[in-house]
């Protein structure tokens, strides 16, 4: 089972490649009540201790596969289930330092049965709806 918070403690750590720390990853569950096709996902920014990592620089790993945000826009055939996490990979040389970090993730989903004018996601605004918004959690790197 997943943690109740959207941002999961489990899965938060630095990413090491060829002996070098190249970034970090954070896992999120989808707070919407149903799973979505990747093209319905509206990925937003990641913010750590005030440092902004723009939405289109983040790699989303879903069902064990890496996707760029532009790749996801065309995947109306790959499904993200509500019982699975997405692993967000963020590039940052040296990764995050040991200790506490305030981590924020923004994303939403499109739902066609809602009126078109409310079926939107804004990466520049902080808000929460049942189909997306801003999620924050205090996390620890060991």
């Amino acid at each position, binding site marked *: *089972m*997943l*943690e*109740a918070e959207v941002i999961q403690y489990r899965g938060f750590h630095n990413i090491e490649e060829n002996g070098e720390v190249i970034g970090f990853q954070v896992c999120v*569950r989808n707070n919407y*009540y*149903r*799973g*979505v*096709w990747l*093209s*319905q996902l*509206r990925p937003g920014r990641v913010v750590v201790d005030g440092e902004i990592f723009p939405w289109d620089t983040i790699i989303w790993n879903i069902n064990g596969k890496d996707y760029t945000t532009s790749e996801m*826009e*065309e995947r*109306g055939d790959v*499904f993200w*289930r*509500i*019982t699975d996490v997405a692993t967000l990979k963020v590039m940052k040389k040296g990764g995050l330092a040991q200790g506490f970090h305030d981590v924020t993730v923004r994303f939403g989903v*499109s*739902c*066609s*049965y*809602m*009126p*078109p*004018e409310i*079926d939107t996601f804004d990466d520049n605004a902080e808000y929460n709806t049942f189909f997306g918004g801003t999620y924050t959690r205090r996390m620890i790197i060991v």
Partner: protein
Amino acid sequence: MMNKIKRGVSLYSYSGEYGRTMDLEDCFKDMYDMGATGIEILANSHIDSYPDLSDEYLEKWRYLCNKYHIEPVEYGHWIDTRLYKNRLIGDEEAREKLINDFKIANKLGFRILRTKLGVIDGQLTPVENWRELIKSVLPEAEKYNVIMCPEIHLPSVLTDKFVADYVDFIEETGTKYFGLNIDLSVFQNRFDIPGVTVYAPDCKHSQPEDIIPLLPYVKCIHAKFNKMDDDFNELTIPYKEIINVLKEEKWEGYLISEYEGENKDIPGYVSHELRKQHVMLKRLLGY
């Protein structure tokens, strides 16, 4: 004599806990306590291998239905017309997804589908090409023996033009594979009760008797509820009048509970509210 109106639960009710503090079997156990005999699942939420149906899931599904005496009643699925950011879903793509859902529903034992169409405005008018889309899959619906039912939900009312259009479509095509799912939110007449989430404060509502001419087409009813008191009354929807109409008109089918109130993510909260609602339903039905 068989009871004509039966009680069921939509797993949507548990969406604040599902996958976190409750798993699929917990939902079945909860329903069994209430004497609910029918279930609605949302394909996109409650099938852990979706859009495929794994052998493991099918086996677990049959085991749970058998163990807790629950019958598959309604299979919720979507036509996500705004599938892409800058363009609509293609006709063939929509067809493929629909047929995939027909196959899964059929294997799991569902006959009624709650087919959620994309909408184009604030009154939830369906996409303009819904007739073509539905027509294009009627042969497959017949093959897999499933009835597509769009859901009529607040802020729509039963007298909206598109509801009459659905009825005309059924009459004109003579199809047995398209019907209606009425969500009782269309009768909600109180928006001022503390603790009730209000999405559309100024919306119109239908009168209980408005459902009568539609009943021959109504395959399933969502027993939407927002707030129960401790005397087992629902405070926002005139349940007594609605159930009386259904009984008088001898409607047959399932009332599928759908909790839309607050605190869905507090463990146990929804289970408790569902029990209250089912006390009310048992009393109103008389069995």
